[in-house]
């Protein structure tokens, strides 16, 4: 297992190198010029050219790439073209809201989806199953922003129970922190809930037809023990895979949810940087996202060995 993990970690290096190369040149060849955006509406062509020169954007692309890679090799992701702040600082500022939203969303999704999926599989093709899966399909089909606006209207504007927008760091109080996450987590969690519930149902249905489940039932074990201890544990591998993919997707940005609820997360940082052509931020973020995806995939693979003793690396 240790050798496998080390091998996988080393495999990260070529993946990151390809991502770095691809992102850097894609950005440079895309239309748009940060110097023109910085200079503003009333700037002349000469003023824009002067800003471009000072930012080093008029140098050959290969030279710019070499400078960036040299910085990366020294652990420096660069400095934002606009704010002059270190990219690492900007990413660090957005990490807490993103992690908080990711974890709370997954909590909502998993807490609802697994019971729903298990119930639907247990009562397969009966009314409960149809209702549960109908709910899941509805959750999956409804755009996040529609649900978000509906939630805001009722819970924030009309009943004034929760805030419309914003993120309150946990250091400023547990209840304000939780309040700021309830609506976004529910809006986003419903989509993931639907996905996890359907996977749980499908996986459980397959397991429930196995001989050892029939044996457990024949031995007179209580239904809940059969479902939760025997069936769910053996159906867990695909469920964990979906949850893992969900974590990677959520960390790399849920732009619409972050925008509607005004949460300063990594997704919005990415989109803003792309629109402003703030190259160092985009490059830094894509590298971080790539690393997160690789690590999450590795953790998922490792978890398989714990969930299913037959799997060995």
């Amino acid at each position: 297992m240790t050798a496998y993990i080390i091998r996988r970690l080393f495999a990260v290096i070529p993946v990151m190198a390809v991502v770095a190369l691809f992102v850097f040149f894609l950005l440079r060849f895309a239309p748009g010029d940060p110097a023109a955006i910085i200079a503003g509406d009333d700037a002349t062509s000469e003023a824009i050219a002067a800003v471009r020169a000072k930012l080093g954007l008029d140098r050959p692309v290969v030279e710019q790439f070499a400078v960036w890679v040299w910085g990366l090799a020294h652990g420096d992701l660069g400095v934002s073209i606009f704010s002059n702040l270190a990219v690492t600082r900007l990413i660090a500022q957005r990490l807490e809201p993103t992690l908080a939203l990711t974890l709370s969303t997954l909590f909502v999704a998993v807490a609802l989806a697994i019971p729903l999926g298990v119930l639907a599989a247990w009562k397969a093709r009966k009314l409960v199953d149809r209702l549960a899966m109908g709910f899941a399909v509805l959750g999956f089909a409804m755009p996040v922003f529609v649900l978000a606006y509906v939630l805001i209207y009722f819970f924030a504007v009309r009943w004034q129970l929760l805030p419309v927008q914003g993120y309150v760091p946990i250091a400023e109080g547990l209840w304000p922190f939780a309040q700021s996450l309830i609506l976004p987590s529910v809006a986003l969690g419903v989509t993931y809930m639907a996905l996890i519930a359907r996977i749980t149902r499908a996986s459980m249905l397959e397991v429930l037809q196995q001989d050892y489940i029939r044996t457990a039932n024949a031995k007179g074990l209580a239904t809940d023990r059969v479902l939760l201890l025997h069936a769910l544990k053996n159906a867990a591998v695909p469920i964990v895979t979906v949850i893992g993919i969900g974590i990677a997707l959520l960390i790399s940005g849920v732009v619409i949810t972050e925008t509607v609820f005004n949460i300063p997360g990594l997704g919005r940082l990415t989109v803003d940087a792309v629109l402003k052509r703030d190259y160092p931020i985009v490059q830094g973020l894509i590298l971080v996202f790539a690393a997160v995806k690789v690590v999450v995939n590795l953790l998922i693979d490792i978890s398989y060995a714990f969930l299913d003793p037959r799997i060995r690396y």
Partner: protein
Amino acid sequence: MMFRLFAGLLALLLPLSAVAQEKVLRAVLHADVRVIDPVWTTQTIANIHGALVYDTLFGNDADQKPQPQMVGKYEISLDRLNYSFTLRDGLKFHDGSPVTTRDVIASLKRWGAKDGVGQRLMGYVSEMKAVDDKTFTMTLKEPYGMVLESLGKSGSSIAAIMREKEALTDPQQQVKESIGSGPFIFAKDQWVPGSKAVYLKNKDYVPRSEPPSSFAGAKIPGVDRIELIWMPDPQTAMSALVNGEIDFWENPNTDFQPMLEKAKGIKLLKTGKIDSTQGMIRLNHLQPPFDNIKARQAMYYLINQEDYLRTIVGDPRYYKVCPGLLTCGGPYENDGGTQWMKEYNPKKALQLLKEAGYKGEPITVLAATDHNTITPATQVLIQAMREAGINVDVQSMDWGSVVTRRAKKDPPAQGGWNIFVTTSGGVGSANPVLHTWIGASCDKGLFGWPCDPEVEKLRNAFGMASTEDERKKVAKELQARAMDDVVFLPFGQWDIPLAYRADRISGIVPNTGLVVLWGITKK
């Protein structure tokens, strides 16, 4: 033991009480603060930041007359060549150091090297010299009537006074610290670019004694803390305002206005008679067909301002047909050249274009897809051009790409362009010298590069004019000439009101050309 446990839990559950007791103004503006140097960029949001943090020597009042701000007394020689300025008492930077003439001269030199209006002023200045720490002189090569107006302007790139340390930064580079002597202190450690910028009350600030008037008068920091919160989604901003989570929203969408008008505790405020936005269609004078003056003049027959204004704003209370190039309602509004704007006639437009040599070649329009006013205005223009039978090559792109591409002088087929749509602030557009889009200084001018020495001569003459009557006369001649040359096609003027919680805040300073948040107090 139990009491301590309970107290600990309570502390964890409740927000920090110190923050709750502060008077905090939460405002949503049109953009987020990403750049902290108002001289390095002409972005309005950087100037809003600059106006909070930095002070200026002069400030233009509601009538656009310059009034002393950091300056206590000043003298102008009879030949109008020598200016002497003395700083008023009590001016201190946020780090506690006093403001000296060294800081002022270095700041003016940096601003004068970067900003268009500053460059024009510095073209007349032969020398700036410190007499002592509080007095300095400015000597001109020839009289220039816009010295004080330029120093007091509130539109793009205010003449912000920085510490000498920052003012010596290359004008093409952004300063690293934003330490001014203005009414609010920038809390850089709390700045989250793309989300929030925080400003703390400058308790050492000594405001002027005159009442606030636009960019002049007392700049009283009325709250302890200002949070500029960036909300990219207008629906969220509206809900947040209704819910009382924010106090001030600079640019509510016009379709939200009926809801905001009915919402309890909220008021809409038209900020002033010239604090508006002017719509402009810019033609590329370097490329055919608009290198021909007749082709440019043909485009006047495609402008029906009502079409644009109804599409952008909708509610007639908030827009105004304005056929001139200088802000309607401003001191230099006039009818020079406005005969061009009298007739909407697409057939005549095409006929005149053909007479100018247009043979149906594609005309490239840079169409921004993500701007709340420029996008719909461009669509109206494209529709009118198609109605006339013009071959329109619509290049759709985000605004960031438009601002990049419009700087290219190449032919449209090689990445250049023929037409783009933009806007200008009404306060700046009220004055022919401050309104840089009215200029026609060829290669040195703004995108589109109109080239008419007579226009520039008249702008200079406006600057030289010594009486208000003379200025008005020159402004009319200038507008007539600029409209004949088609420096840009105006498509109207609008004044979208800001929205605020009238049950919580008061004291908004109107007609500034820039959102200024000093003077606002909160209950």
